[in-house]
């Protein structure tokens, strides 16, 4: 049984590790300024944890086989432990874990402690059961008033957000169901939700943030490659949670300006 255990544990370890190393199913290609940093920290973590994983599992398997009853006639070593060893491995573990965390903390600080830089592209993201809407504040740079009483989800876009068209600032607001962003520029996102908690998750941009009713959360991202990236809702929001997806189109600055101008024109 000792040998069987060793083989089972080692096999499970090697098969699991293989798929991690081969990256058979992996994070998608990252297309934001934060992605290389996040991926670097991720790699550091999985290499270190991977070493611990393999060492611990193989150690376990080997120990139960080596010290199986009947393997040798050596007497059992009567021992209550080894305090020095305890202190050593406790300290090393603490240094490893806390050190790993501190190394990644500057990435978190960059992403979340600082607000968006001046000149960032403002976009408001609103989640509702079960669609995403995106609002551009237009040339005046101000988001117009919305009013809960004016909300009509079945009418889509402006009406879904309850845009109060009597507000002058709202007249140039563009609301769409697809998020267009210019490549290489920082985006100042304002995240809102209308009914329950949703979560705006774009795996390729390495971005996720819960959208919470009653809050307008500011985040920033910088897309770095032109392409189309999917949005998936990442917080259980009701029966349509699985189909609450959308698309982010990252295009050149030119194309973005053209697109936005076309949307503004449609409003007239």
């Amino acid at each position, binding site marked *: *049984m*000792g040998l069987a*255990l060793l083989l*089972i544990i080692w096999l499970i370890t090697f098969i*699991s590790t293989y*798929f991690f190393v081969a990256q058979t*199913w992996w*994070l998608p290609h990252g297309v934001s300024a934060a992605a290389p940093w*996040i991926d670097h*920290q*991720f790699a550091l*973590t999985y290499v270190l*944890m991977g070493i611990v*994983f393999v060492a611990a*599992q193989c*150690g*376990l398997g080997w*120990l*139960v086989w080596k*010290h199986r009853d009947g393997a040798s006639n050596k007497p*059992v*070593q*009567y*021992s*209550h*432990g080894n*305090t020095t060893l*305890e202190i050593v*491995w*406790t300290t090393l573990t603490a240094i490893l874990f*806390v050190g*790993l*965390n501190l190394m*990644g*903390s500057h990435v*978190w*600080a960059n*992403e979340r402690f600082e607000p968006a830089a001046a000149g960032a592209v403002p976009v408001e993201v609103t989640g509702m*059961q079960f669609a995403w809407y995106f609002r551009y504040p237009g040339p005046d740079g101000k988001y117009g008033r919305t009013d809960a009483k004016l*909300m009509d*989800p*079945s009418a889509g876009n402006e009406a879904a957000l309850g845009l109060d068209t009597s507000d002058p600032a709202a007249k140039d607001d563009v609301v769409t169901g697809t998020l267009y962003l210019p490549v290489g520029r920082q985006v100042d996102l304002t995240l809102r939700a209308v*009914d*329950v*908690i949703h*979560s705006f998750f774009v*795996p390729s941009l*390495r971005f*996720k943030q*819960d959208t*919470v*009713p*009653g809050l307008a959360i500011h985040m920033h991202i910088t897309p770095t490659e032109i392409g189309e990236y*999917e949005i998936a809702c*990442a*917080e*259980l929001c*009701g029966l349509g949670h*699985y*189909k609450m997806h959308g698309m982010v189109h990252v295009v050149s600055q030119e194309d973005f300006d053209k697109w936005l101008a076309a949307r503004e024109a449609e409003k007239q």
Partner: protein
Amino acid sequence: MATSAPVHAHAAPQGFIRKYVFSLDHKIIGLQYYFLALVAVFVGMFLSLLMRIHLIWPTAVLPLVGEIKPETYLSLLTMHGTIMVFFVLTTAPQSGFGNYFLPIQIGAPDMAFPVLNMLSFWTTFVAFVILVSAFFVSGGAPLHGWTGYAPLSALQNAGPGQQLGADLWITSIAIFCVASLMGALNFITTTLDLRCKGMTMMRMPLTCWAWFVTAILGLLAFGVLLSAGILLLLDRNLGTSFYVPLVVVNGQVMRHRGGSPLLWQHLFWFFGHPEVYIAILPGMGVTSQLLSTFSRKPIFGYKAMVYAIMGIGILGFVVWGHHMFMSGMSPYSAFAFSIMTMLIGVPSAIKTFNWLGTIHNGRVRFYTPMLFAIGFVSLFVSGGLSGPFLAQPVLDIPLHDTYFVVGHFHLIMGVAAIFGIFAGTYYWFPKMFGRMMNESLGRVHFVITLIGTYAIFMPMHYLGMAGQTRRYSQFTEVQYMTHLIPLQTFMTYAAFITIAAQLIFLFNLFWSMFKGEKASDNPWHATTLEWTTTTPPPHDNFGGHTPAVYHGPYEYSVPGAAKDYLMQNDPAGVAAH
């Protein structure tokens, strides 16, 4: 004279109702909890089977259950999580085994408050009945997940199942809170006040330490959950706005104003994080006990193990924010919580090193309880090492609310903690029922379950990294998820096999009660006090006398001793502590 008749005599009861239904005997109550958890785990497993089938064949019409609509899937997963976390993982390891063996292992004749003990079981039972009834009311069971985030859980019109079903869910949990608090009260008072002569705290078996610290966690955490649930009931039914700000559901403006969804998350996770340590600590205690017993070697670093249990308990109260990194909580708080979370990995690592140290230079015997204890260590390592990923907020960005998290907590709770329950069952079965469970069936059960659970839950990490979000009732709507379906299919087939293998355990359990080989009083040659008494133990546990203890609980292979084990109540031999 002050006492005439022995008013408080705990003589053995007569009659079926007093003996088996409203028993005051902690052993019967322990078995009642255990069998309640057994029923619950099979209900929970059945729900997960339906879930796995639906994910791969979303349009299938199943016999008995019919078609599973998206909202049905969500209510299946809500009830699966709730039943498993509360009625299996909080019940069997602590209330089941703890009730049965804590008093015996500390040399007491019963728990401190037997009537309260009986009440706490029946309250738990009522909570379970109310929970399951949610399936059968109009609207069905709630769909807000076992975490019940507001406003989804606070709004009756936010989805099917969110009317009476959700109210029943909250009520059941509230009643469960009360039952758990009663149990915790008993465990703590018993441990502090009923230890027999010579049983100092530092001579208690690690199982007792685990039950004791787990009870403290429960004592401090369940009151907060109760308050959170009451606030939720008020928001749902009486128009208050604790959790709900101004919201519009399906075009309808609701009457709430100014509430905070994050308030629910803080209150829930303040309970929820200690809860997961409640689920795992007893299994750790059992593993320590079994590794020592079946390696014929004292546990490596008993004191460190005790401090590690305490460390996990204390730190468990200051890490709840790591469930909320993406919630909109302050990023500075997130940083603080993440440091504390990394720190809680340290006592867990200490325990793992010490388990390995126990086996090292021991003499391992591969009885079924030992197999599950070894399996526990392997699964704890696997499930635990995905923790440092999630503990870092910046890595939580891609991983939060994906299958990576689902894999993490299933390996730890859904497998390792369950292995702790299996280990305890195979180990203590002879003491509880007077017979041995079948070894061959036990081995088959172990091998299939170990491989099967790895096959189900290890792939979840890959899925999570690839961006597969959780609580999706199907994967057909999001383009980047469709290529992950084959891996999900593999997991479903693994689930079929693994769930089927549990029937082997079930058969073994009940068959052995009647036809198993008769057990001696101490078939494992173990040292703790439950093995000093008859099998099964008499009504007052020790047959009219109270034991006295002379040394620590894991005196195996003491040099110069006649046998390779020295029982705690044996005055002969080296006094190690």
